[in-house]
Structure formats: C-alpha cells, structure tokens
C-alpha cells in the first residue's frame, strides 16, 4: 500500500490543527519517524501501489522521497527546540501545515499521472502558504501574497501544458493512460508540435515554482520571512522535486528528436 506514505502525514496534519501545542510537537516528530520508516520500506520495495494508474515508484521519485523524508525527520527534532524558544501565535496551524506540506511533497514524488502530479504540486503551494505567514507581520503577509499569487499563476501555466500533452496524445491517436511510464513507451507516436507546446508551458509553470529566473521574484522574500524550520524544509522540495518533475516530461519527450530541450537537464 504505497499511498499510506502520504496519507499518514495528511491525517496527522489534519489532526494537528485541533490538538494542543505540546501534543502537536510530539506528533510532528512521530509522523517524521513513521514517514522515514515507510520511505525506507518503499526503497526496499515492500510497498506496492493500490492505484497503479496514478501512483508508482520511480528511481528519481525515490531519490527525492528519501532526501525529503530524512531531512523532515531531522528538521522535526529541531522544530521542537525552535517552537519552545520562539513565540508563535498559532502553533497548531504551523505544525499542521508542516505535516500537510510533507504529505503533499511525498505525493508529488510518488505520482505517475501527469494531472495527479499537478494537483499535488498546487497542493504544496497551498499547504506552505500558512507557513510563510507564521509571524503575522506586514512583511510576511506581503511575502505570502507574492508567493501564493505568483506560484498559482505559474502553476496554472503548467496545468495548461499538461492539457496540451494530453492533446498531443489525442492528435497522435495514442490510446494509453496519461501516466509517465505509459507515455515513455508510446513517445514516438505523440504529436511533436503539441508536445513541444506542452513542454514549454510545463517548464515555465514548474520553473516558477522552482524559482528559475525570471520567474524567481517571490523566492527571496518568502525564504526571508518564513520561520527557519519551514525555510529549511522548502528548498529541499523546491530544488529536488520540480527538477525531477521537469525531467519527467523530458524523458517521455526524448524520442521524438528534440535535442534543444534536452540540454538543461
């Protein structure tokens, strides 16, 4: 049951919103530990997906998952000391959002369906927005606003790109599921024009989330305003997951000969 890896932090995250502060802190470390154990189980190959249409274990995804899981566990231990020392207004929202952030990040690394991956990436934006606004200052509000608006608009571009990739399948008369593994197999038959258009939009969209220039303007502000545990966690995701996400379409796009797009990856 592969899905349990992101379902557990999701459930504990929702629970953390309603729990008192001390319990919430314990839950954060506990979920981090369980997540680490489950990730290692995925690595060994013990967990098989229930919905193979949407989720799968891939080498790139596994690498990201293990890095995220290990760092989250270490950060969760540090967070306890951080929360004791700092004066955070709504601590349950902070711990809950941290766990939801972990859950959505995990979902990104495990998703094999192009739309499910988009859903998961947009969900990471939404789950991390309250983390940036933790300090409730005017500057953090400004950073949150920039982050949510710029990333949402950027990721909307990636949604359009994903739709165009499915159009490329329609035009090429390919009858396969919209999963990356299935698409790599039939990559030769996809319509090159629509696929190129889709890839450009996906690169711009997820590039915004990665903070590629010139779509990077939200990034320095968000990192300077977010509390340090959240700020420590997000680069892990922002720098590993989307790079891997952009490499996924490239993988399925490689056969129809477009060397220009391959170079950056």
């Amino acid at each position, binding site marked *: 049951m592969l899905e349990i890896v992101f379902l557990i932090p999701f459930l504990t995250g929702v629970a953390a919103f309603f729990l008192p502060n001390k319990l919430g802190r314990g839950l954060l470390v506990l979920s981090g530990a369980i997540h680490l154990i489950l990730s290692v189980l995925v690595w060994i190959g013990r967990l098989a997906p229930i919905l193979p249409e949407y989720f799968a274990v891939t080498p790139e995804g596994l690498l990201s998952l293990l890095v995220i899981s290990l760092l989250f566990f270490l950060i969760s231990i540090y967070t306890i000391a951080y929360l004791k020392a700092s004066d955070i207004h709504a601590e349950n929202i902070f711990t809950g959002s941290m766990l939801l952030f972990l859950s959505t990040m995990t979902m990104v690394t495990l998703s094999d369906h192009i739309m499910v991956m988009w859903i998961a990436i947009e969900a990471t934006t939404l789950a991390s927005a309250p983390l940036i606004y933790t300090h409730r200052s005017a500057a953090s509000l400004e950073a949150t606003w920039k982050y949510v608006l710029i990333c949402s608009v950027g990721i909307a571009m990636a949604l359009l790109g994903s739709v165009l990739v499915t159009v490329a399948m*329609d035009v090429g008369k390919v009858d396969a599921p919209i999963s990356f593994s299935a698409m790599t197999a039939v990559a030769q038959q996809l319509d090159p024009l629509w696929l190129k258009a889709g890839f450009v939009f996906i690169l711009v969209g997820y590039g915004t989330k990665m903070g590629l220039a010139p779509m990077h303007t939200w990034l*320095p502000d968000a990192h300077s305003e977010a509390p340090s545990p959240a700020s420590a966690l997000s680069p892990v995701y922002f720098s590993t997951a989307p790079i891997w996400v952009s490499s996924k379409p490239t993988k399925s796009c490689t056969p129809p000969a477009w060397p220009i797009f391959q170079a950056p990856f």
Partner: protein
Amino acid sequence: MIHPVDTILSLALLSILFSFGSSRLPGLIKVMAFQGVVVSIVPLFIGHEISTGGMVFTIVTLVIRGIVIPGCIYMAIKRVAIGREVEPIVGYHASILAGLLLIVGATFAGHHIDVPDSSVSALLLPTAISLLGAGMFLLMARRNAIAMVLGYIMMENGIYLVGTTFSVRARHIVEFGILLDVLAGVMIMAVILQNIKQTFDDVDTARLRTLKE
C-alpha cells in the same frame, strides 16, 4: 445554423470586454460569476455523450465556479472594499481596446492551429486563448489585489475550457481534484486578502513594496 456553443462562447468573449471596462469591484465580481457559469455549461452542448458522472461533475463545476468562488471573494471584501475602484494602471478605454485587439489576435492565432477535434466549434480555441490573455492582462494592469485574484480565476476558466473540450481522457476524479485545488487556492487568497485589508487598511498592492528581493 448557429451552433448553441457559439452563442455561449460569444457570451464568454463579451464578459471579457465587460470585465475590462468595469471600474467597480462588485460589478467585476458579478461579471466573473457570469463567466464562470457560462464556461462551465459549455461541456453540456459540445455533443459528446454525457454520462451521469459527467452531469454531476458539470453541476458541481457550475456551483463552484459560478457561486462559491465569486461568493467567497465577495465575502472577503464585504466590509471595507465595497464600491471601491479597481485602481487601473491601464485606463478603461485603453483596456477595452486592448481586449478587442486580444480577441482579434486570438481568433487569428486560433485559425492557424490544427485542432484535433475540429467538429466542436470554431470559436472554442480563440475564446480559450482570449480568456488566458485577458486573465494575464487583469493581473498586470490592475493594482487592486482583488482584481488580480479575479484575473487568476479568468485564466483558470480559459484552461478549463481547453481541458474539458479537447481531451476527454481525464477521469472525473482527476478533474475534481483540479477543481478542488483551484477552490482551495481562491479561499486561501481570500483569507490573505482579508489580512491585507486589516493590516494595510487597503487592498492596493502598491503598498506591498517593502520587500524587494
């Protein structure tokens, strides 16, 4: 004979021009609600066979895009910002002219693109491109934070139009997930809007200038 989809899509195009010309926020929100309704009923008239699940999904989309999302933003601004101007960077007349040029350009571009299923409607692709461009325009040409959120919603409407009509392969559960994400995004934006209003006593983004990379 005029296809019913063409009528609906031309209403969507009209709503773009209306939104560019409206100076007051409540008016703009109403235009966006209208556009949400119009865009979400398009799949019913496309001519694909509609299953029960498809019907339910269309109704849910209609409720969320036409009622919940605009209502959410309306509630967020209710007390202070009612009747406020949208603080344009580009004036209204220039905006409407830009909108017309955008629609002409989108029609021109739409006719040069090979559509996989050309039986649907000749207006479909131009409308989708216009909605995307118009959303971008509202994001750039208005300083008011609420008008920016509405621009984002307009972009999403355009993508929805491309998505539901061109590719019939995505399952409803996946589409529902996308809709849920958009809804949650708008709700979070509405919460941030309320906080901006309380902290800065305004929703003019010109005041959000302290952080400069």
